[in-house]
């Protein structure tokens, strides 16, 4: 009876309880759903470039700002630009706003950038931005100042002496967060009315690297000298060479001046790198165009090594020996033969696993350019060769720039420096990173009889193969240098590269240095993509080694082949300077109608002229300049620009000296033009002069 009643009660309450629970669950599910929708009112905004201006052929900052609401949000931030996909996993705590800066290169003029947020495969929010695209060879000027309105005149700077491009002005904050590559978009930086110590530590380092790379920075040394000359700009009594670049103090100050005034200073102190940024293609465009040359160099590192082969052959010999022995011992131990077969299968299988047959193969080819001052830039192409068609990722955390190459673009994460690929391999990624370097600049002596003497030491602890010295128009083979080996050099320059066509030039170098095919390609990548015309010689050598990257999240050592490039300079004994032919490289300014046939050859159109610049180092006073490779009479005329008169005149003989030379080099680089030639091999110059640290363009601070 009781139980029946209980049963009834339980039944009644049971039903109600059940309904209650059911409704609660349903409501909770719906509620949670709505809450999720509520949290997805997440805001995203995007701004790109420098004050909205992006530079073609350069790496530009794209800043995406995400503002969360109500709930913690986790998902992926994607950016699509020019058909390339970038993504980065993000977490936004509730009520937080976070900003992410993607370093993205742009190459096409009509680019639109779209950013989006994705969670669980669904797009949640998006934003678009169309930046103003500045052409590749435009002039971008940065201003570091507390009163930027005094630099309003800078927008009128018109560098027609350097190619006639109008300038764009962008203000830099004292804690600008641009990376090294992003700052490279700037051609010049002007500093005045700015406390040098205000510069944030990271920004200061980036700025110094920018100068060292070969750029020119002007500092006001007028009424605000007391304020400016601190930190990086301390103790400047005259223009100072820093690495390949220059810091120039301007005694009149830089505020409220005229465009012409600044134009004059910029022209006087322009570096070859600075000029090539204005007149030629951007470095990034050149590098990515030449990157395919590195594919075979990287693939070649997957070749089986002789060590591996002989190890396996010796194991094989053991196998045969053991099988033969088991055969002979058949009467006593008839199970031995099968055991030998099984055993050696196992041994070889272990050897195969150890040799990495189950791993994804990867290899790298790199060019490492050692700079003055214990730093080096490394440009690496990494290739991965996946087994199947699944996803694979490659990460190089120390890189400052990484991008995917080839047709299958995949997905990149510029904040983590990670490249993701899918599909059948091989896949390649090209990146740039900064590394410390122990190399010092080689100093060699060259006397008037053209005999080169000096000591060359391999600064690396491992062997450098096929080393050669490129000095102007001479290539000297030095063979292999063991780790830290020092050799004495005494050679007469034989000018074996003078006035050669492009193909013969490269062929002579590769034959003299006895390069293999992969090494030839590495050298060509350097020559066409990375060599930027700083004066001086180069010592180059190849080294096979290993590199650390992360493939699919696992750190691995992969085989690599590296071309090391060291700077070599000539001493100036007793203040006398002799730069052999080609030591100072020509910087051409081809217009649209001049087709390049390589780096040294050009094919100007009908009636076109080809201007060429020769930038003399600021601490040299030239007394005589000799030209080589001048077009013959009838095949074209070479004219020199007289700056003092502001007119062109034809070159007499093949040299310039004395007063006529001074008129051409006062206040700017030596400028020539070649007219009426259908095929031009750029002429080279040799220079005789004096070391003049306190001259008109002196460097009181010395080299640093």
């Amino acid at each position, binding site marked *: 009876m009781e139980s029946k009643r209980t049963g009834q009660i339980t039944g009644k309450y049971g039903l109600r309880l059940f309904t209650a629970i059911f409704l609660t669950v349903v409501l909770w599910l719906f509620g949670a759903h709505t809450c999720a929708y509520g949290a997805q009112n997440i805001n995203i905004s995007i701004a790109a470039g420098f004050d909205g201006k992006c530079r073609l052929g350069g790496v530009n900052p794209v800043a995406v700002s995400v503002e969360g609401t109500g709930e913690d949000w986790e998902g992926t931030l994607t950016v699509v630009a020019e058909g390339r996909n970038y993504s980065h996993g993000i977490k936004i705590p509730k009520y937080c706003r976070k900003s992410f800066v993607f370093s993205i290169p742009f190459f096409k003029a009509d680019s639109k950038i779209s950013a989006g947020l994705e969670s669980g495969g669904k797009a949640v929010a998006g934003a678009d931005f169309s930046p103003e695209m500045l052409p590749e060879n435009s002039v971008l000027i940065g201003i570091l100042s507390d009163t930027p309105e005094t630099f309003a005149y800078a927008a009128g700077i018109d560098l027609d002496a350097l190619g006639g491009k109008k300038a764009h002005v962008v203000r830099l904050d004292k804690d600008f967060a641009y990376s090294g590559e992003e700052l490279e978009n700037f051609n010049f930086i002007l500093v005045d009315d700015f406390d040098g110590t205000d510069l944030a530590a990271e920004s200061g380092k980036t700025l110094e690297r920018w100068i060292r790379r070969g750029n020119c920075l002007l500092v006001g040394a007028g009424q605000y000298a007391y304020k400016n000359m601190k930190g990086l700009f301390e103790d400047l009594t005259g223009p100072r060479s820093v690495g390949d670049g220059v810091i120039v103090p301007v005694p009149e100050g830089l505020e409220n001046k005229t465009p012409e005034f600044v134009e004059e200073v910029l022209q006087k102190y322009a570096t070859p790198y600075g000029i090539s940024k204005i007149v030629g293609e951007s470095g990034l465009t050149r590098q990515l165009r030449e990157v395919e040359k590195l594919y*075979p160099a990287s*693939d*070649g*590192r*997957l*070749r*089986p090594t*002789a060590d*591996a*082969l002989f190890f*396996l*052959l010796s*194991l*094989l010999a053991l*196998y*045969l020996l053991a*099988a*033969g022995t*088991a*055969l002979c011992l*058949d009467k006593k131990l*008839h*199970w031995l*033969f*099968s*055991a030998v*077969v*099984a055993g*050696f*299968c196992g*041994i*070889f*299988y272990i*050897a*195969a696993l150890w*040799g*990495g*047959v*189950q*791993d*994804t*193969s990867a290899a790298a080819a790199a060019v490492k350019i050692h700079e003055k001052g214990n730093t080096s830039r490394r440009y690496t192409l990494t290739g991965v*060769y996946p*087994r*199947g068609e699944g996803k694979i990722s490659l990460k190089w955390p120390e890189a400052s720039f990484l991008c995917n190459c080839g047709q299958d673009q995949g997905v990149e994460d510029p904040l983590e420096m990670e490249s993701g690929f899918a599909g059948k391999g091989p896949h390649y990624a090209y990146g740039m990173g900064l590394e410390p370097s122990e190399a010092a600049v080689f100093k060699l002596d060259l006397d008037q009889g053209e005999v080169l003497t000096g000591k060359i030491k391999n600064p690396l602890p491992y062997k450098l193969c096929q080393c050669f010295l490129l000095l102007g128009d001479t290539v000297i083979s030095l063979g292999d240098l063991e780790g830290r080996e020092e050799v004495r050099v005494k050679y007469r320059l034989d000018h074996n590269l003078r006035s050669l066509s492009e193909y013969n030039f490269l062929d002579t170098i590769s034959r003299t240095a006895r390069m*293999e*095919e*992969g090494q030839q390609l590495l050298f060509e990548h350097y020559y066409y993509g990375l060599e930027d015309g700083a004066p001086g010689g180069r010592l180059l050598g190849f080294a096979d080694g290993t590199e650390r990257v992360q493939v699919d999240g696992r750190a691995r050592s992969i085989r690599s082949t590296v071309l090391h490039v060291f700077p070599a300079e000539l001493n100036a004994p007793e203040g006398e300077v002799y730069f052999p032919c080609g030591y100072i490289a020509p910087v051409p300014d081809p217009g649209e109608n001049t087709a390049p046939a390589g780096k040294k050859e050009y094919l100007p159109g009908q009636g076109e002229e080809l201007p060429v610049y020769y930038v003399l180092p600021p601490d040299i006073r030239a007394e005589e300049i000799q030209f080589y490779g001048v077009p013959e009479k009838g095949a074209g005329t070479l004219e020199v620009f007289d700056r003092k008169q502001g007119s062109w005149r034809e070159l007499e003989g093949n040299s310039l000296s004395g007063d006529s030379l001074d008129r051409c080099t006062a206040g700017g680089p030596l400028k020539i033009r070649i007219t009426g030639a259908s095929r031009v091999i750029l002429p080279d110059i040799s220079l005789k002069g004096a070391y003049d640290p306190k001259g008109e363009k002196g460097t009181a601070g010395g080299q640093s």
Partner: protein
Amino acid sequence: MIEILNIGKENKLIITVYIALLSVVSTAYFLLVAMRAEGYDPEAWGKAYMYFMLFSFVLFSVLLPFWKTGGAGRGKYLKMLGGVLVFTLSPIPLILMILVLGKLSGVNFMLVLAVQALWGTGLLSFKSALEALRIKKWKGFLLAVFIFAVLVLLPVFLYFFVEYNRTVITTVFDKRIPFLFLLNPLHSAAGLLNAQTGGQVQGGYMPYPACLLFWTLFSCVNMAISIKYPQVKERRRNRT
């Protein structure tokens, strides 16, 4: 168990000669051709792997008729299987060498060796079936003709068929090849190898399991015959 591994001295000699020949060929290839190449060509290594497997398959078929199938009773067949297994698996170190040096990852060579093992079993069981049917005098000859017919005549007739029908064949496992020709274990192995080293696979992998099945059935039929008709010698011995 240990008795299964007792292959017999002559057979061990055959296996040793087999491995020695393959070692000579592959070593010569490595030293004279592969190490002299300037760059790295994964396709060339894939082809090397494929041709090596096919070469070892052919050599296997040539050497197998000389295999001595001795012994009595049920143990005989286990011994035969064990022997074929050791014979087939003996060149694995060489295969692994090619895979390691050529950086070919994820290649499952055991599948191809499975075809080879079943083909070997089929041949040996055929031989013992012939013995059971008392065709002693022509046994070796018939075996050789059989091997020739399967490995060589089938492809030749495939060629005739293609020309007669004017079909176009693009790859090893082409859809248009009639099923009969795909029973050739060499053809199946070649198709499988082609797919493993990156070639096109048109008809899917269907021919391969079918081929395995066929040769398994063939072996079973032969073994059934030779069990049903035990050897005359034995019967005579039993009588006297």
